[in-house]
């Protein structure tokens, strides 16, 4: 009863309406200005130019900062040096296999284009899909990464995070891929996707997967790319 009486009293005070309207307009304006400021920063950060207000869309957002970008890279690096990836990013003239990353059996050789040698090309054995009945993995155009993308040293030890990051962001070495292309590569390249569908070993057990899911890997790559592909310091 008390509440109803007070509400009636407020309603009778007509002078309250303009004040309420003023507060509402101020609130909406401040929200809009805040959003525009954030968008302008994001767009500037990516393209180097300001974007007219009419082109700002809700998808634009504040980019990750340097620390977030480096954290994203750490996650990306943890995948790149996992056996499913690094076994074909060797510094030698041969691929590796297995979680212990031993040299590929039968003295398989890299060859001039990373696709093996005559009579013993990668596709001599590796077909377009995994052969789970035999344990031979497969994917489209099975081949080694170029030597410019070697993520190991000559003793088959993984390179440092800084060194791998330096390679991947060097467009003279990475087949001229910018951040967007790197994100696309990690999202869609058939042999990258294979790492999360590596099939069975010859003994029938499943091959181990990279430490992140593919979705997590792509998200980490996106964060790193949106932060400007920062690399950690050091060698």
């Amino acid at each position: 009863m008390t509440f109803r009486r007070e509400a009636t009293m407020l309603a009778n005070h007509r002078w309250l309406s303009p004040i309420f309207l003023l507060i509402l307009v101020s609130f909406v304006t401040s929200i809009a200005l805040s959003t525009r400021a954030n968008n302008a920063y994001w767009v500037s950060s990516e393209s180097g130019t300001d974007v007219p207000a009419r082109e700002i869309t809700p998808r634009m957002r504040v980019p990750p900062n340097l620390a977030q970008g480096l954290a994203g890279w750490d996650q990306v690096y943890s995948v790149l040096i996992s056996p499913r990836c690094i076994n074909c990013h060797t510094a030698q003239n041969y691929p590796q296999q297995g979680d212990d990353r031993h040299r590929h059996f039968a003295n398989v050789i890299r060859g001039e284009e990373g696709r093996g040698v005559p009579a013993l090309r990668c596709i001599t054995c590796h077909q377009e899909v995994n052969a789970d009945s035999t344990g031979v993995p497969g994917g489209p155009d099975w081949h080694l990464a170029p030597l410019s993308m070697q993520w190991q040293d000559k003793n088959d030890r993984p390179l440092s995070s800084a060194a791998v990051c330096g390679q991947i962001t060097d467009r003279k070495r990475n087949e001229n891929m910018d951040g967007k292309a790197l994100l696309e590569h990690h999202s869609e390249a058939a042999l990258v996707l294979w790492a999360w569908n590596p099939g069975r070993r010859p003994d029938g057990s499943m091959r181990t997967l990279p430490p992140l899911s593919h979705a997590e890997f792509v998200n980490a790559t996106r964060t790193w790319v949106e932060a400007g592909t920062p690399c950690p310091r050091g060698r």
Partner: protein
Amino acid sequence: MATYQLNVNGQTKKVDVDPSTPLLWVLREELKMTGTKYGCGISACGACTVFLNGVATRSCIVPISLIADQKIITIEGIASDPVGRAVQNAWVEKDVVQCGYCQSGQIMSAVALLKATSKPTDTNIEESMGGNLCRCATYVRIREAIKMAAETI
């Protein structure tokens, strides 16, 4: 079961098999072309080597469903190729064969090598033939025969 039309040694062959059947077993069991041998069944010995569109391929691990219209050349058809003929002649001349079980795969790989490298070095031979095992250890004669074939091509 599914029906597949294959191009084997220039001839069209029709087979009705399970899609997962390896090419090796289609050749041997369905088409009765037993020159291609079963060795390990896991692509590790090279005895089952055939050409798929000119690429030396282990037929034991290629399911028939992946063949499509690729041209298959087997040991039965290799003599119609000049390089294949030269390799076979050299094999006979050097008396390479001992038990012979691996030799059809060895010859197919040797032809693939010579088609890509007409004058192979010892290193070329070792690298390209490294996936073909011979329990009789005829490797020295295989190397000699490849070099002899290279001279005649």
